[in-house]
């Protein structure tokens, strides 16, 4: 039994991974077919797994309802919405993409909730910036200056401001305007740092993948040998 529980999954990981690598380097149709096939298989498995996720969600709310925990009424609402949406989408409407109750729910319930939750970012981005962008240390100051130049330089205000200063004080004309500075910061020093991050990431990702394929790293399977 130990073989099926421990070794077999590791063998599958290595074999599947190796085949994927080979198919990356070969144009042979059967390998390419295997690559797309594997991609579809992963999708199919993940979609079956969704049932387990939904089961977990329903169980968590069921426990709340059963124990009549504070706010269990919300869990009942969750149940109603989930069952209603699923019933409409699976049983009532075969063509869910256009018209109908399903798309109406998507358009007037799901989308506004998505957009609104997303838009909370505008508030958070302001409060986080207010708190963190203070000239406390050298590093924090560098961040602050970079953020300010970008924020001012990329709106019309930045251009107007630079033009005004350039016209008033002729000497400042040797200093580039804020939009140019913003563009330069983005394309040179920030790009350099981003590339360094990317190169480090690539090495980290590949090394982690190889550790997994060689069976050196197996913590994700519950660890132990």
């Amino acid at each position, binding site marked *: 039994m130990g073989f099926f529980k421990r070794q077999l999954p590791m063998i599958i990981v290595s074999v599947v991974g190796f085949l994927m690598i080979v198919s990356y380097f070969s*144009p042979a149709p059967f390998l390419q077919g295997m690559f797309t096939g594997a991609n579809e298989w992963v999708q199919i498995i993940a979609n079956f797994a969704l049932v387990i996720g939904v089961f977990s969600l329903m169980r968590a709310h069921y426990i709340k309802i059963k124990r009549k925990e504070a706010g269990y009424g919300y869990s009942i609402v969750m149940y109603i919405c989930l069952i209603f949406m699923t019933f409409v989408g699976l049983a009532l409407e075969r063509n869910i993409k256009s018209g109908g109750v399903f798309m109406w729910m998507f358009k007037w319930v799901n989308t506004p909730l998505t957009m609104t939750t997303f838009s909370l970012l505008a508030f958070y981005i302001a409060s986080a910036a207010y708190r963190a962008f203070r000239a406390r240390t050298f590093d924090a100051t560098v961040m602050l200056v970079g953020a300010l130049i970008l924020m001012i330089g990329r709106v019309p205000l930045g251009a107007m401001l630079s033009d005004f200063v350039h016209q008033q004080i002729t000497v400042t004309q040797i200093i580039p305007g804020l939009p140019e500075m913003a563009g330069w910061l983005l394309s040179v020093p920030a790009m350099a740092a981003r590339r360094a991050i990317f190169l480090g990431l690539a090495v980290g990702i590949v090394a*982690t993948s190889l550790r997994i394929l060689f069976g050196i790293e197996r913590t994700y399977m519950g660890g132990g040998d």
Partner: protein
Amino acid sequence: MSGKTHSGKCGFFAVSLTVFLCIAMATVGIGQPGELVLPAEFKAIDTPHDAGKSILLVWSRSPSEETRADKGLEYVIYEATSPEGPFKVEEKAIVGLEDTLCSDAPALFGFSPRHKNFRFVEISQVDEETEEVRQHWYRLGIRDETVTEPVMLDTIVTAKARMNYFMSHRWNTLLVLLLMAGLVLVCIEWAKKHPDLFIRKIPGIDAVDEAIGRATEMGKPIMYLTGYSDIDSIATIASINILAHVAKKVAQYDSRLIVPNKWAVTMTLTQEVVKQAYINAGRPDAYNADDIFFIAGEQFSYVAAVDGMMVREKPATNFFLGSFAAESLLLAETGFSIGALQIAGTDSTYQIPFFVTACDYCLIGEELYAASAYLSREPRLLGNLKGQDITKIILTILILLGSVLMSLHVFYPEQHWLQAIKHFFAAL
């Protein structure tokens, strides 16, 4: 010298270059601007690194390109199913002067500068009706606005489309992969002999103990998020590896660990990992599977639910490790508002700034992948970090050297080997 050039092709190009130069000089000597001059060389070869569906037709540039460029000069390819013909009157392909030089397609021909003197076209050998690969024969014509009929070259060429098993233009990827695989294995052996390997401090990971201790003291739970991506992202796997260490410590400290998941597969894996960690810590009874659950499957409903849970459960510590998208700041700011100590780490470069501003500690990019090894202190994994470092050192040296050579190339433009390192890194 680019490694992409095959020796056979080298010979072919060397010969054809000579022929081309002779003819070019001859025509210039004759200097008849009124006549179209035929290319000196016309050849068919199998398309390298394809599945055997097409061939390439390659010919030397006609000297007329120089003299009659403004006359809409173009080449015409005629096709036949047998060498005797008949060559279909309808053109198989018309080849203009833009983007058809062999040097425009280094993936097929490599970077040799001589390819500037040749043009090519890729021709499918698949029969449109039967979808079978069939051999064809080709002739080349040249024409411009001033002539009604194209001037035809007598040469009839053909090639068999062969199946290639290796995408030769990806040899650089293969080389890097083999190098890294070798380094991984070598460094493991090395680390077994040198267990006391130096690893620099990673502040975010050093804070893990403090963060868990804090939660225990306050009697509040710890929240751990594996991020936005499913298990198809290596960052998620890295995060699950870190979770194993965190869970073990949580079990030892006797705190509560909450792991809300966005994906069913990560939920399954995180349950497995946490359960095993509790077993390893000798406290299997303390493991509660209901604390590792699926909370919502869509990006912002996940945010709404996790944020709601955060303000209600008030965890003392938040871990955000894995891939994150727009939700990074939505989670971290809510975490800040409840006064949680927050440790974040992500490979999503655009989200790192948000985590840096809103969290107490942030693992930047690669540090996320190093964290598991750092926490485990296992020689095999630490040796692996050494391997990563060696790769980066080699990369740094190559980048510096490459830049120096490229600078020299500015002064010696005919020394094409100076571009070799840059060309090695060309993703074709």
